């Protein structure tokens, strides 16, 4: 395997001093790859990403065990700002746009760590190219844009920092199918052309496995399965539970009945 950019080693995370959420999660993100983190609600994907980008503190969570290394450097004690300086940017789940700032101001704030004016202007142009919808809404306050527009804004804002490792938390949530595809195309684009590495937490397994190189599957705070994306996509369980194509045909949502299924890896 190539160089490891990010090496998460057996971390445990506790919220509020009492709620143990991650119970020893390890994963590696190789340079220039797209790694997907899959798993159901509450599996701990967001928490994992927060632990990496050091945003746990504001949620009153802390890493109590294990280590996180960025290109060999321990980063548990760096501030999120330090991490952005090192090129690691997180796109937070649930948008988190700056409500009172306009879309354009939101994007420009994303370039806080960039000092070159031309670079910022070029980046802005690039983001507007990726998301033309943002351009038409550029002067409107972020709070007054639609959910999808905010999602684009959040992604665009992260791109403004010229990152080399992006932690994407549910990028596709709330986006129209067309845009979802576009977003993933953008991810692929950045990955291939600009060598940006991605760690991506997703519910849309279909898409994620299509674009990712490698995947981890989480369940209640543990990694339960991992492997190259292509392999995962052919795994029977993954097919059934995450892709909905178990047993050949895609099942209609109408027909799925409520029998309790049991995942084999939980056995």
């Amino acid at each position, binding site marked *: 395997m190539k160089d490891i950019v990010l090496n998460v080693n057996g971390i445990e995370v506790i919220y509020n001093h009492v709620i143990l959420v991650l119970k020893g999660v390890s994963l590696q993100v190789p340079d220039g790859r797209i790694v997907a983190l899959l798993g159901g609600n509450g599996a701990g994907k967001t928490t994992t990403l927060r632990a990496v*980008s050091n*945003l746990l*503190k*504001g*949620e009153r969570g802390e890493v109590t065990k294990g280590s996180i290394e960025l290109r060999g450097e321990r980063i548990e004690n760096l*501030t*999120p*700002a330090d*991490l*952005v*300086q090192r090129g690691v*940017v*997180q*796109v*937070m789940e649930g948008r*988190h*746009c*700056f*409500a*009172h*700032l306009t879309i354009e*101001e*939101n994007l*420009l*704030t*994303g370039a*806080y*760590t960039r000092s070159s004016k031309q670079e910022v202007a070029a980046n802005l142009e690039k983001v507007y190219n990726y998301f033309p919808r943002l351009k038409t809404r550029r002067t409107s*306050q972020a*709070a*007054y844009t639609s959910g999808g527009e905010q999602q684009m804004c*959040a992604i665009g*804002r*992260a791109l*403004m*920092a010229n990152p080399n490792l992006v932690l994407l938390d549910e990028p596709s949530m709330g986006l129209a199918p067309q845009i979802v595809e576009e977003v993933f195309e953008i991810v692929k684009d950045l990955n291939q052309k600009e060598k940006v590495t991605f760690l991506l937490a997703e519910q849309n397994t279909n898409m994620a496995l299509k674009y990712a190189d490698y995947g981890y599957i989480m369940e209640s705070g543990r990694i339960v399965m991992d492997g190259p994306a292509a392999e995962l996509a052919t795994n029977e369980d993954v097919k059934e539970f995450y892709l909905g194509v178990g047993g050949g045909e895609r099942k209609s949502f109408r027909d799925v009945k409520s029998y309790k299924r049991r995942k084999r890896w939980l056995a």
Partner: protein
Amino acid sequence: MGFFLETLLGGLMTGMLYALVALGFVLIFKASGVFNFAQGAMVLFAALAMARFAEWLPKWLGFSSPVLANVLAFILAGVVMFAVAWVVERLVLRHLVNQEGATLLMATLGITYLLDGIGQTLFGSDIYKIDVGMPKDPLIAFESTFQGGILINKEDVIAAGIAAVLVIALSLFFQKTGTGRALRAVADDHQAAQSIGIPLNRIWVIVWCVAGVVALVAGMIWGSKLGVQFSLATVALRALPVVILGGLTSVPGAIIGGLIIGVGEKLSEVYIGPLVGGGIEIWFAYVLALGFLLVRPQGLFGEKIIDRV
């Protein structure tokens, strides 16, 4: 008529002085979403530092020029306020990232107690003097037009001028620079701001430094007017309707709010007060602010309060 104008003018001047204190509130609120209860205490602390340094420095260093003493004292007091900003960030704010407004408000209450305690321990709790050579005598203008002329307080005019300059400079800073934008971003969402690399620590130190300097200027002016003692902190309470009326997030709002409140409270006290036994200006200022709020719930220039589902 002459008296009316005089009252009006007096109100405008007082308003500018309130604006100076209000500015401190606005700065910190705008840049971190914290309602800084400690603003009054900061004004007092800065004024105390300046007054005492101006007294001590000539003794320590053995010179006698009052101008030099004042300049040095101002600088030293500024340094002290920087230190305060740094300590506040280190020991308090840093640990309260992403907490709710009420929690942060409470933290600034803690800071108030600390500043009061430390300030009085270091600098004493007597009454002290700041003498920066502000003219104290009145100026009577338009004597030919109005009987008795119009009295203008020179000290107030100078103070108002300083306040205006500060406000203009800070408005430009917020609207036009990238840092200003980053500050507004922080106020909206600490966590998102962190996630895109805005160093909250540094930002907060900067803002509290600026607020500290504003407090120092306010403290200097109010202190030279009133003398430096504990009650100086209470001007914060008079500045509160100003902040609210102008909008918690608007720097120019502080000035406009100040002018409206200043004029409103003076006119009300002078013209309505005697009818009801006087002493109405404080609550009148608040009621006036409230009246404006009913029309514009976010204050005159405040950012619109957003609630969307």
